[in-house]
């Protein structure tokens, strides 16, 4: 297990340049990419999530940490592809049709990515058909749907219904989130789970993957 304190700190400080440089140096010294992810990046993003929960960090800190984490991932991904190492859990995420709100979804996406999952971010205002296409292409275990407006929440149900009609519903677990969303609503529309926060989403995905 490789633990790079420097990379850990760079992620916590949201320093993308440093994260990139440290990762480069650590790899040159012979570190294994997967070890860096599990030994350093996952604990770092866990800590970022904890600091957000305790109100120490806010949206900017979280997004900056996400950027730092991504700058390290950019170096690791091609190496893992050539060595055949694979991230075992794939997640498709997007904000549902009619809703342009991106930030909450981005927070969840970067927390998931930083927690060692492969994340396919479809962006905002994503039609049900695009979700269907992404599930077919990426074969994720988990699909995350986001909505910030009460008036766009019904599009979550539509998306689930369209996945059902396409015969894909049983292949994936569907999690929903966003300010107006509740656990009760998740049950009503036939989702598999709901999280109130970005770090909660990480533990939810972990639970689901462990249970699957």
């Amino acid at each position, binding site marked *: 297990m490789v633990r790079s304190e420097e990379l850990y700190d760079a992620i916590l400080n949201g320093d993308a340049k440093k994260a990139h440089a440290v990762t480069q140096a650590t790899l040159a010294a012979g570190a294994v990419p997967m070890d860096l992810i599990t030994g350093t990046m996952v604990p770092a993003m866990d800590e970022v999530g904890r600091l957000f929960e305790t109100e*120490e960090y806010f*949206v900017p800190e979280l997004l900056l940490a996400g950027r730092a984490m991504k700058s390290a991932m950019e170096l690791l991904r091609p190496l893992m592809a050539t060595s055949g190492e694979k991230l075992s859990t794939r997640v498709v995420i997007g904000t549902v049709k*009619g809703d342009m709100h*991106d*930030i909450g979804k981005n927070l969840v996406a970067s927390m998931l990515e930083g927690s060692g999952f492969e994340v396919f971010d479809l962006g905002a205002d994503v039609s049900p058909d695009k979700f269907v296409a992404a599930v077919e292409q990426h074969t994720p275990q988990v699909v995350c749907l986001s909505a910030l407006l009460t*008036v766009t929440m019904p*599009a979550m149900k539509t998306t689930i219904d369209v996945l059902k009609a396409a015969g894909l519903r049983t292949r994936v677990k569907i999690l929903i989130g966003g300010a107006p969303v509740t656990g009760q609503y998740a049950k009503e529309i036939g989702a598999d789970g709901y999280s109130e926060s970005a770090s909660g989403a990480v533990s939810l995905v972990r639970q689901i993957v462990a249970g699957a």
Partner: protein
Amino acid sequence: MSAEKVRIQLEPSGLIVEVPRGASLTPPLSLHGIEFPCGGTGLCGACRVRVLTGSLTITEQDGLLFSAEELSIGWRLACQARAEAPLVLECEQWHMDILADNSVLSGRGKNGLGIAIDLGTTTIAAQLVDLATGSVLGVETDLNAQAPIGSDVMSRIRATLAGADLATVVRAVLRPMIAKLARGREQEIVEVVLVGNTVMHHLFSALDVGPLSCAPFHSPNLGEQRFSAEELGWPLPASCRIRFVHCLGGFVGSDILAGILAVGMPTSEEMLALVDLGTNGEVAIGNRHGILCASTAAGPAFEAASIRMGMRASTGAISRVSLLHGEMRATVIGDAGPRGICGSGLVDAVAVGLETGAILASGRIANGAKLFPVDGPVALYQADIRELQLAKAAIAAGFRLLLKGRGTNADNLKRIHLAGAFGNYIQAESAIGIGLLEFPKQRIVPSGNTALHGAKMLLLAVHEPALPRIEHVSLAADPDFQDEFVNCMNFSAREYIV
């Protein structure tokens, strides 16, 4: 054994209290800040409430203190009331000062009388105007009776899509206001001009709000809407022209169009800005050569609605906070101890906290503290400061993008007009201090109810005023907005000159 409870909703705060059926309202209401100066004996009338939904029996004291007309529209004394069934009550003590417009306009050669109406999401202001002279002959203000359905436009849209008829509700609340303004001179009224945000425009006109409920928020019905007095049920002559002025975009309505006129943007050579600081913040920037406008979702922080100890600007609210010889001084509304903080106090308190270092540039309360004490029992929680960060970032980012879109920068803005009540109460120094407004103080101009002012200009104009091209920018669809929004969230991001 507990008695059966009755649910009472208090407006305009939306607060819910539960009281035992048949019990006095005095204890629960005083617990929530309603004052009973005469001790609930029914003598002073200060605890008056208006029944918006449900009913309250008229008591002997009610009969003594209220006119038949007041009783008929639901005014009662809270101290004498017993709740038998669920109620929605409007509390007079929480009544906001509804801003009308005192600007002096002159006639343009028309004759007769006209009525200008600013139909706001929360409040309504209407004025009777002599079209020959431009002078204001009467003013009426009221709360928008749609408020019990939800305080923001999105909840109104949702209720309408679920089948509620809000057009009838708002047309009905305007009827007595118009009747009062017109009293005895109905036949002289030749024109009524209404302005309001896009949702109010659609709800008043009974247009489909479906398109306003989801992206891309393009409604096919943004145009001017005309009505007859008869279809609205208003006591005005059949010949009276009644129109709701056209909207500028999905969430930028004719209230902003009227505001643009009021501040003189369409004829100005210099670059001007207009900003309405509300739950839905609207910004317009431009001059006679072209105007850009946008709406930006600031959330309810400026109204202090989402703040833990937030309250309306009424008795007991901290409305101003300043630094005197390094010590924090709070000003409380009314002759009372502090029991909450209103929007202007919140902006002040955070600005002071930043100055003293008690709040860090990241928004975090210093030294890992959970509370930032303001005065007496009133404190800001970490989450309150976060709410304000979101609100101010939405406005500041909106400004930055429109300036960029118009190919100019903050230095070229000659004046920044603040529309609406909050713009009148907020301290410019504090707004600058928290990075809400990134402009020098001397260019910031509180401009009052620019919507009503502009509506009067439209009423007096013989011809429709010539407008430059006004372009609506959809910020939500712009990826740069998300970046700029995050950039503006920290308090360190300010680049201002005081």
